[in-house]
């Protein structure tokens, strides 16, 4: 029995997205993948999402918009137009979940505060997201992904100690906030089932970033120790190999396995015999290991080392992932049709489920 199904929500669940943000739109996409019916309300002019880079190859069409709106119904309506207003209110009347993107002030200016939405959709779960919050010093700030990764503390820990701190590529802070929105919505739906009433919550991208980079605050709180970039460099090593890069991860107690896999007598040297010594002689160690990795392709190295139970990985480009045997076996990517661009792929749901029917009562037993 293997998990293969993806829809965990009943198809009758109706989701409405109001306002535009990457976090809100990604959350809507997850709900669509979970089986809900999702309607995104889009302004008739100047859609922020439609301008989010990158563009589809050789075009002006936003790849981000195209990916995030897959499988959704799009309703173009303006809050300040009577007809638009009416259609939005009609959508809200039937909504189980409402995702609102934007600050309280922005929604009050549109005369559609979260309280108004609660009135129009009294049993709905209303989740609202901002980038920098409603209150505090950043509420009115300009900025996006980079500023959120900076303010929430994430960037500070990534990169080399003496160089510029760097972001994680793409939109990880905003999409992770979409995951947090989904967590809130799931809790709200659970309560709706049990208590029969709606609820509302909010979050911000910088809060989610702080939630992800929580260890630095925690460490400092306890020990007064200040984490800096690169302070826990050992033992992960990122080494070049024949066709790219390899994440050579080993635990200190795996050292004998490393020696067995690499089979280079220089690794038997006293200088590499303990983890502190390997850290001290890191440059020489890297040189020996790199001679080994450069003789192999990254995927071969990955299977070779994992066969010895080393917890390694190969640095996969996006195209590498389309050919990855594990993703192929699990059918991870969804085939989609992109109007005007033809067949394409999107990441599928990163979860699966399977049911086990309850055992039937035996004859003579009371169920």
């Amino acid at each position: 029995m293997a998990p293969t199904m993806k829809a965990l929500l009943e198809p009758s669940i109706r989701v409405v997205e109001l306002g535009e943000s990457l976090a809100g739109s990604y959350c809507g996409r997850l709900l669509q993948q979970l089986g809900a019916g999702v309607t995104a309300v889009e302004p008739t002019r100047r859609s922020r999402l439609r301008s989010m880079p990158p563009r589809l190859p050789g075009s002006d069409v936003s790849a981000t918009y195209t990916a995030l709106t897959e499988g959704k119904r799009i309703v173009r309506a303006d809050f300040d137009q009577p007809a638009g207003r009416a259609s939005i209110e009609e959508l809200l009347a039937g909504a189980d979940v409402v995702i609102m993107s934007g600050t309280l002030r922005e929604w009050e200016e549109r005369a559609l505060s979260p309280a108004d939405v609660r009135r129009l959709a009294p049993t709905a779960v209303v989740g609202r997201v901002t980038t920098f919050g409603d209150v505090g010093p950043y509420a009115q700030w300009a900025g996006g992904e980079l500023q959120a990764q900076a303010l929430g503390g994430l960037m500070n820990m990534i990169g080399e100690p003496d160089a510029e701190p760097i972001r994680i590529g793409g939109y990880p802070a905003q999409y992770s906030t979409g995951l947090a929105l989904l967590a809130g919505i799931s809790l709200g739906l659970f309560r709706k089932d049990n208590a029969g009433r709606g609820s509302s919550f909010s979050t911000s991208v910088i809060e989610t970033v702080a939630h992800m980079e929580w260890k630095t605050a925690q460490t400092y709180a306890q020990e007064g120790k200040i984490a800096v970039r690169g302070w826990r460099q050992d033992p992960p090593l990122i080494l070049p190999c024949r066709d790219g890069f390899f994440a050579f991860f080993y635990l200190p107690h795996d050292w004998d396995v490393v020696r067995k896999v690499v089979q280079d007598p220089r690794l038997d040297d006293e200088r590499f015999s303990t983890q502190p010594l390997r850290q001290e002689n890191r440059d020489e160690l890297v040189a020996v290991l790199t001679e080994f990795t450069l003789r192999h392709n990254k995927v071969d190295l990955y299977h070779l080392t994992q066969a010895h139970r080393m917890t390694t990985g190969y640095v996969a480009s996006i195209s590498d992932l389309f050919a990855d045997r594990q993703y192929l076996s699990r059918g991870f990517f969804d085939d989609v049709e992109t109007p005007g661009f033809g067949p394409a792929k999107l990441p599928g749901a990163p979860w699966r489920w399977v049911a086990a029917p309850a055992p039937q009562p035996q004859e003579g037993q009371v169920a």
Partner: protein
Amino acid sequence: MNTPILDGVRVFDLSIVTAGAGCTQVLADFGAEIIKIESATKPDLFRGWYQPNTTEGDLDGSGFRTVNRNKKAFGVDLKNPEGLAVAKRLIAECDVVVENYRQGVLARLGLGFDELVKIKPDIVLVSVASQGTTGPDSRYGSFGSPLDALGGSMSVTGYDEAHPLWSSQQVNYPDQTASILGPALIVLGIRAARAAGEARWIDISQREIVTALLPEAVLNSSLGGADPIPQCNRGYDSLEWATACAGEDNWLAVSLTDEADRAELAKAVGAQDTVDDDALIEAVDRWSRTRPRAEAAGELQRLGIAAAPVMRGFELRDDGYFQDIGYFQTVEREGHDPELQRGWIVRFDDNADAGAISRRAPHIGEHTAEIMTDMLGYTVAEVQQLSDSGAITYPADSLQLAH
């Protein structure tokens, strides 16, 4: 006061370190009863990680204390037949089993999905797995970080194409994303199982989450576009970088999205050349080097330019925004002053629905005796006998305390 949202949900929690234990932290914050299963010989590895001190015994690890707050702990040796029998009695009282073992371990313990369904017909089993529970590489191990590489995130992160980087051990992005999506799927799994009156097994692939968070990159590459590469702090089509400010290791993250931004910024920092990226960056660097990062951010924000200080995680404790929303939570500690821990995954408007922390992380087996006697109905003599045989464990005086 309202009842907590997850009141009445009980979890048999085999999860360890962050990817799994962080999921159940969120459930615990919202009122679920989380029973953390460990044995005296194989406790959660995380108990001794992250700047452990040496004064709190099995609560030395500061990271452990955060992701295990609000949980109870039950000490049982699942490889001991009597211990396994006790565990099965406990599972019968639970709604959910959460695990993030290497694939195959749970089934070998005799607690695979088919077995769990026999014990509790509407159980929800949640496997937070590196690469999912199926497929040729499902038994490959990881400690989060290699999944940055395997999920595609490293191919877009780093100083340049020749220097891909992972999110660091400190951040461990693939563990964090799993611990945010996980609680959502667990709660939806309980809903679905209750509605259908049948069991659910939910498989979560941490690696797939990393790739799922790169949808536009996947779409573009599948249409023949060039694969994205690491390009330091640049966005997909904007000039973005971190510029050094006054003091040591202080930085300002700047983004320029259009020509108007460039012109404003050039004027503000006295740059002659607004066309050449390097010349503009150099001029900004000269300008920022003498300014504190908060001041520099404020000056540029007044001009409508996206700029923010690169904050250190611990500085958020004194940050205006995080103070205004009451983000950090005070948690009691044994023999030490209380500590601040991260707050809730989201904030419910009705305060009574928001999370609450009622207890610090537990010692190994801290609640074994009380669960054995009060929930499972074992007699004190039986508990003592099972402890003597090594099937269960609890701190020396806790059986007396339970009775």
